[in-house]
């Protein structure tokens, strides 16, 4: 399955994240790929809003590696930017989250790719210009 859409502002990215999360169930893993400033954290803010979490509570977990937010469902927000190997993710218990009781969203997933469940949803974000963001959502058919 593949789906594409384009946004033209951070607010629209947040709205799309909110819309997207409605289709997810606990235990699902979402991988967000995109450059620095692509809007990954904004998309996660939208996902959080959709789960009944205040989007202001969502901040970048680059240093803290994982943020947890509690809404209608739990949201685990990973940022693997600082991780150099999948082993580092294992050491902090990453797999406990992937197969846990919440929705997991991962920024910079390519750093820990071998650990990511095969049924994960992959979203790539590209920035053709300053305001436009192109999203491609891919999910393997069951």
């Amino acid at each position, binding site marked *: 399955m593949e789906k594409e859409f384009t946004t033209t502002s951070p607010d629209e990215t947040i709205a799309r994240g909110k819309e997207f999360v409605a289709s997810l169930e606990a235990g699902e893993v979402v991988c967000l790929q995109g450059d620095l400033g692509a809007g990954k954290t904004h998309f996660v803010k939208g996902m959080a809003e959709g789960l009944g979490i205040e989007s202001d509570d969502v901040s970048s977990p680059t240093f803290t590696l994982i943020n947890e937010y509690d809404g209608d469902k739990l949201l685990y927000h990973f940022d693997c930017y600082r991780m150099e190997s999948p082993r580092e993710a294992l050491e902090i218990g990453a797999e406990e989250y992937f197969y846990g009781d919440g929705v997991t969203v991962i920024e910079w997933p390519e750093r820990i790719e071998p650990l990511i469940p095969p049924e994960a949803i992959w979203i790539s974000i590209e920035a053709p210009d*300053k305001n436009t963001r192109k999203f491609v959502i891919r999910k393997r058919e069951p």
Partner: protein
Amino acid sequence: MNILGIESSCDETAAAVYTPDGLQSNIIASQAIHEQYGGVVPELASRAHHKTIWHTVQQALNEGSITLSDIDAVAVTQGPGLMGSLLVGICFAKGLCLSRNIPLVGVNHMDAHIYANFIDDQPEYPLVSLTVSGGHTQLVHVTAPFEHELLGQTRDDAAGEAFDKIGKILGLPYPAGPVIDERSEHGDPSFHDFPQAMLDNDFEFSFSGLKTSVKYFLEDQDNREEFLKNHLDDICASVSHAITEVLVKKLRNAIEHTGVKTVALAGGVSANSMLRRKAEKLAENTGCNLHIPKLAYCTDNAAMIAITGSMMTQQKLYADMDMKPFANLKALERMNVQR
């Protein structure tokens, strides 16, 4: 009371000893491991707290010239942080407390950053603390020990993270904060006017837009590489200016709002030269006393956990043996409501 402090909330495993005579030792795991194996041991990941915690605690006791039987309480970071990492420290601390029959103290890592100011100094209450690190950016009003009001925090990137990520865009090595700081000293802060976000809000911060703005500022140049080469110091200075201006303006708002006469900086970014200068000037202009801890007490460390633990024992703020870690401050609030 003689306190053993243990910190394992994120990257560092650390231990420290604090007694009525002051701080006796302050050890970070990497040091302990290097000493034991004589050199750098790269395969020992910094976050492998379970492998390093015992050596780190042992070294803290040795350097503090104290034995475990003379420790009266164990203070450990309860959160915020990574649940797995926090659990290692907490379980280890509980084990020590149970075997020695001594009390346990659960320390909030964010509080500890503030009380790091009390290791070498005696700031007066009430005070406002600006806690700025790679993971956090917070303005806190402290009216008395452990009486805190969170005035505002970042809505996206932390200030230290903004330095590091902009450094990456500029092609600087990670962590880029110290490099940008040094280059800024040789550059022109008014070279380019980068946006200072959220000035319409009194105490909240946002730094993710600045990152994007730097990226597109460079892309707009005819020859990005050449431009970057010729103006790196100026860009670093302009970025530092944008970040520190916002921090200091909000700090001024907090001083005016609360009417405090004491200001404290905390967290690793408090080492930033431009921030220090601006904070010093602000303190002078507002008639405040400014406190900044030594750098070793600003980055994640156990000395700040030990002193905070010591202050908590004075108020009889002990934890039960069923104490659980908390990942973030919201989770702590929920835990307190349930009690």
